[in-house]
């Protein structure tokens, strides 16, 4: 097998030898906001609602695709208690917004492109009147055929959804991202084995607990606006919406309190609610409260891109993968959102190309992804950002190859994984110095799964099977501006304030940032407070997405804190009459190294520094090596570091009822360094649970642009009983550029679950399940088909 666990452990011990003196980082510290959340005292945006606010409501499109012939709002305007009714003609600024490109209208004017397009807005003194007013608005439509399937929508004769889209390539095709490496045709011609399959993955909802809300308050002094909303990227919300309000960005302040989960969705949905509340507030000069109902969240806000993937894989008889040739069609929905443009922001479309070859060193690769408009909710960022789709295909392909070769699927993977110095299909050289723990992850999962022991096959209707998968997943966004800034401040008593525009949305970022700051400055964990998500209080830290914050923003915090520390040490050297290189700060004390009797409480040293004109605030910044990626050939170094992982599952599938039970679940992730192991385990659990939902039960059902299952009544997400006990293994191969060696862990655990379950299903039944989710209906239908074919 080539992997000896003890050797690996020795190696890892050596890597970690210099981190033994950490006081705060790496400790299992309880989440800062956990108690307030558990008690219900934490204040989310909706908790800030006051009785004197106007209530905003939107009338959404009756049809998913239609021309607006006429809107009559006169009866609504006459209703007592209605303060304003707005249609597109009443908007103060640009009627368009979006993170990448402003193609989504605040209020649809001539045409609606999905059922989440607002056609009119109302502000009223209470909710009842606002709703009544919506009923009084009359809209006349000319209905157009609705497009559900991107494979149909990309054809030349399909009805055009956007007549003049600012970024669309051709017809309903928004964009196309390509990757080419080596000589694919030659490799396929020379291949011993070719595996070819079609894969389908569904559109799913983020299912965050906290609804989308915005409180918009006009600022009577500046004439600007304050927007309070759960948002994953406050600075981008400000930038994207300022033109909508016809305000300069410095008059728009966006504030995001603690967020009840986002999973990528609240990068976009905050724009939806903030645009509506904001224009109503400007119109009425009053504070407006706007909230989406759960059904509206299902119908209007972003979803995970559904994909249709054709995957071909070529290999030698010995099990070396020589080439892949992949075509992916993504259901874009009605607007660009985070779907990706041609240049420079390829976003989700790019990731389906980049991860088409998995965690393997494949010398020849061709991958093409098309992002195609439909009359569906816009597809946006969702935990994994295109990677779960790509990995479902490639990890299923690897399993098929192993079966064809009659080779152990883990052994096959070890023959092909990227190792130090290898290039990925996107041409990036994988470096041990950035952390390369894939082999250790594989070895550990193999051990815990007891993979060497043959599986006990049961008679009867419950069939056992096991499956395996691996991944590599980039930390951060491959955009030229990638980087982060923050403010670090010493209070005069030596306590520390960090101001950062990232979002705490349940991932534990507040706690991790506090640990990083406390460790860097040598102060107690309790003496650091991190303030989050206020555009007026902190510089741009970038989006809280892409598994980037602990790493990229964490480095900015280290940078800010180090500047402060150096100033205090420099000042202390003068006070203590020692070389500043001999001064250190630990456990809240400043001292000359080796002379404990010189220790002075940090607070008094900082106070003294303050009166001696030492500045106590610093701007911390960090930029990774500038990311590169070409949409023409898909080559570049898009991220500075990669997380790795492996997963094994053992399942029992009931052939009579189609039920799937996961009986063993082992997941190992190389996170570089676990700043807080509890947080890391929670991310692993949460991500894997999301992967289980995606694999087994979740699927948005769209027909003619209309969503049938628009609430939790008929859109199941896994309950605690659907999620097995998980065996979680943290692997730490430090990233030389990460804070204390860290890499991102937010999204990766969502990636390997679906293919692992799919491969276990194949193992149990000998049937290919190439379409997610594996519902009882699908399992039974596939078994019937298989039986009919073989009888």
């Amino acid at each position, binding site marked *: 097998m080539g992997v000896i666990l003890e050797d690996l452990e020795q190696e890892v011990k050596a890597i970690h030898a210099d981190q033994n003196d950490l006081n705060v980082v790496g400790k299992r510290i309880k989440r800062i906001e956990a108690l307030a959340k558990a008690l219900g005292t934490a204040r989310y945006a909706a908790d800030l609602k006051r009785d004197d606010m106007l209530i905003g409501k939107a009338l959404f499109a009756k049809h998913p695709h239609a021309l607006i012939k006429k809107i009559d709002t006169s009866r609504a305007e006459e209703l007592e208690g209605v303060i304003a009714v707005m249609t597109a003609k009443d908007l103060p600024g640009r009627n368009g917004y979006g993170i990448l490109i402003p193609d989504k209208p605040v209020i649809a004017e001539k045409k609606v492109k999905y059922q989440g397009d607002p056609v009119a807005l109302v502000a009223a003194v209470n909710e009842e009147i606002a709703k009544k007013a919506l009923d009084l608005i009359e809209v006349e439509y000319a209905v157009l055929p609705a497009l559900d399937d991107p494979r149909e929508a990309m054809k030349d004769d399909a009805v055009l959804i956007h007549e003049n889209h600012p970024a669309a390539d051709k017809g309903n095709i928004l964009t196309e991202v390509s990757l080419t490496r080596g000589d694919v045709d030659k490799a396929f011609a020379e291949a011993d084995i070719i595996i070819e399959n079609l894969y389908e993955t569904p559109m799913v909802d983020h299912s965050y607990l906290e609804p989308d809300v915005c409180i918009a308050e006009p600022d009577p002094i500046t004439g600007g606006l304050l927007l309070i909303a759960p948002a994953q990227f406050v600075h981008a919300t400000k930038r994207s919406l300022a033109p909508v309000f016809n305000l300069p960005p410095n008059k728009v302040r966006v504030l995001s309190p603690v967020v009840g989960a986002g999973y990528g969705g609240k990068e976009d949905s905050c724009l939806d609610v903030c645009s509506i509340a904001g224009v109503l507030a400007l119109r009425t000069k009053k504070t407006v409260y706007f909230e989406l109902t759960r059904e509206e969240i299902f119908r209007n806000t972003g979803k995970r891109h559904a994909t249709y993937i054709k995957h071909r894989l070529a290999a030698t008889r010995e099990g070396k993968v020589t080439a892949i040739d992949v075509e992916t069609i993504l259901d874009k929905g009605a607007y660009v959102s985070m779907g990706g443009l041609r240049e420079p922001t390829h976003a989700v479309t790019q990731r389906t190309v980049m991860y088409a070859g998995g965690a393997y060193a494949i010398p020849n690769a061709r991958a093409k992804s098309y992002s195609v408009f439909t009359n569906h909710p816009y597809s946006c960022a969702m935990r994994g950002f295109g990677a779960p789709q790509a990995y479902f295909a490639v990890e299923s392909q690897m399993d098929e190859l192993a079966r064809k070769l009659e080779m152990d699927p883990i052994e096959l993977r070890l023959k092909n994984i990227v190792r130090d110095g290898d290039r990925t299909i996107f041409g990036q050289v994988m470096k041990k110095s950035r952390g390369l723990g894939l082999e250790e992850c594989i070895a550990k999962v193999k051990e815990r799964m007891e993979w060497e022991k043959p599986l006990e096959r049961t008679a009867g209707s419950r069939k056992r099977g096991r499956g395996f998968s691996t991944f590599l997943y980039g930390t951060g966004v491959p955009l030229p501006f990638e980087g982060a800034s923050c403010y670090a401040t010493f209070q005069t008593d030596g306590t520390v304030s960090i101001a950062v525009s990232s979002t705490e949305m349940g991932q534990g970022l507040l706690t991790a940032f506090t640990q990083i700051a406390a460790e860097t400055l040598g102060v107690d964990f309790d003496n650091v407070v991190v303030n989050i998500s206020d555009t007026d209080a902190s510089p741009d830290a970038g989006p809280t997405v892409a598994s980037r914050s602990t790493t990229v923003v964490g480095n900015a915090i280290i940078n800010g804190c180090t500047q402060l520390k150096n100033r205090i040490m420099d000042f202390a050297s003068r006070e203590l009459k020692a070389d500043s290189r001999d001064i250190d700060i630990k456990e809240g004390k400043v001292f000359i190294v080796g002379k404990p009797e010189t220790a002075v409480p940090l607070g008094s040293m900082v106070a003294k520094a303050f009166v001696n004109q030492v500045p106590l605030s610093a701007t911390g910044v960090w930029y990774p090596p500038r990311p590169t990626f070409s949409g023409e050939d898909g080559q570049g170094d898009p991220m500075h570091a990669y997380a790795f992982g492996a997963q094994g599952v053992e399942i029992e599938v009931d052939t009579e009822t189609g039920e799937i039970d996961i009986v063993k679940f082992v997941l190992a992730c190389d996170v570089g360094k676990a700043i807080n192991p509890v947080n890391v385990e929670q991310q692993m659990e949460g991500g894997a649970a999301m992967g289980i939902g995606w694999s087994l039960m979740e699927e948005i059902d769209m*027909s003619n642009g209309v969503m049938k299952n*628009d609430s939790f009544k008929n859109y199941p997400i896994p309950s605690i009983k659907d999620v097995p006990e998980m065996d979680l293994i943290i692997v730490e191969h430090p990233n030389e550029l990460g804070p204390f060696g860290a890499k991102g862990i937010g999204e990766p655990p969502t990636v390997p679950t679906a293919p692992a379950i799919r491969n276990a299903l194949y193992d149990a039944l000998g049937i290919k399940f190439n379409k997610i989710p594996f519902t009882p209906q699908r399992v039974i239908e596939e078994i019937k088909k298989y039986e009919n074919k073989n009888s």
Partner: protein
Amino acid sequence: MKSFQHVNVFSVEEAVSTLKDCKGSARIIAGGTDILAVLKDQILPDYPEVLVNIKTIPGLEYIREDSSGLKIGPLVKLADLVSSPVVKENLKVLAGAAQTVGTPQIRNVGTVGGNLCQDTRCWYYRYPHSIGGRLLCLRKGSGPCLAATGDNRYHAIFGGRGCFAVCPSDIAVALLALGAEIKTTGARGSRTIPVQDFFNPLGNALEPEEMILEIQVPNPPAEAKQQFLKYTIRKPIDFAIVSVAVLVVMEGEVCSEARIALGAVAPGPLRATEAEGALKGKRLDTTTLEEAAGLAVKEAKPLSMNGYKVEIARALVARALSACL
């Protein structure tokens, strides 16, 4: 939600007279777990002006044992049904069915009467009015059944006539197997309706001015073994894809009586009489059980997308029977 008047009533007579006075514009509310959602989504073209709150009627929340069997008041909470020692002891299928309903929160407020009267979960029927407008269909008195030609993966495999929505009540399935009757009262007096006659393809047999007064469950045969099984997509907190309640009486090695009731497969709970007949007087070996399970779904007429429900029903019948041995 649109506003409505919420009227507390303090006697059954007052409830009936209030329903009558409102001339069809009133609906009954007990636990409210279903009706409030129906109203919030405005799925029906008519919206009641009055909700008659019967929770304020004293004396309707009892579980009483007499020589003929068990009498259950309509306001008994599902949670109380689950924890009642006599129900657990004698009516295992009923306790089992009630246990599978929703969440503890729902079982703490949801009532027995309400569980029987809840509206169907058909996703066309339940389509909310707020976006795009409610969908009209046969069940709402206008147009064809949308599931018949649409996505019918959760719909009826038996007995759909025009409308293919299924009855979502779990306890109805258990009550059918137990041979229970539902006593009602209304503007036209009282009547007793066997459970199998309570449900019809478009809802239930209650008239607009009628309410459930009592559920009467005869004593099951002594030594009867009972089993309730419910199959859902998500393990807890979900409506049935298929459910089954069985009751088996053995005399020595031979089955002297078997009752099989299927749920979520038809407009109401359904007895599988042919399968029951095939068990009577037989030794219950695997072949006999499999045969009975096959007979239980023999008459199934699946729609375009719900053939899998036939397979699940067959498996559940065999398993529930086998659990009784």
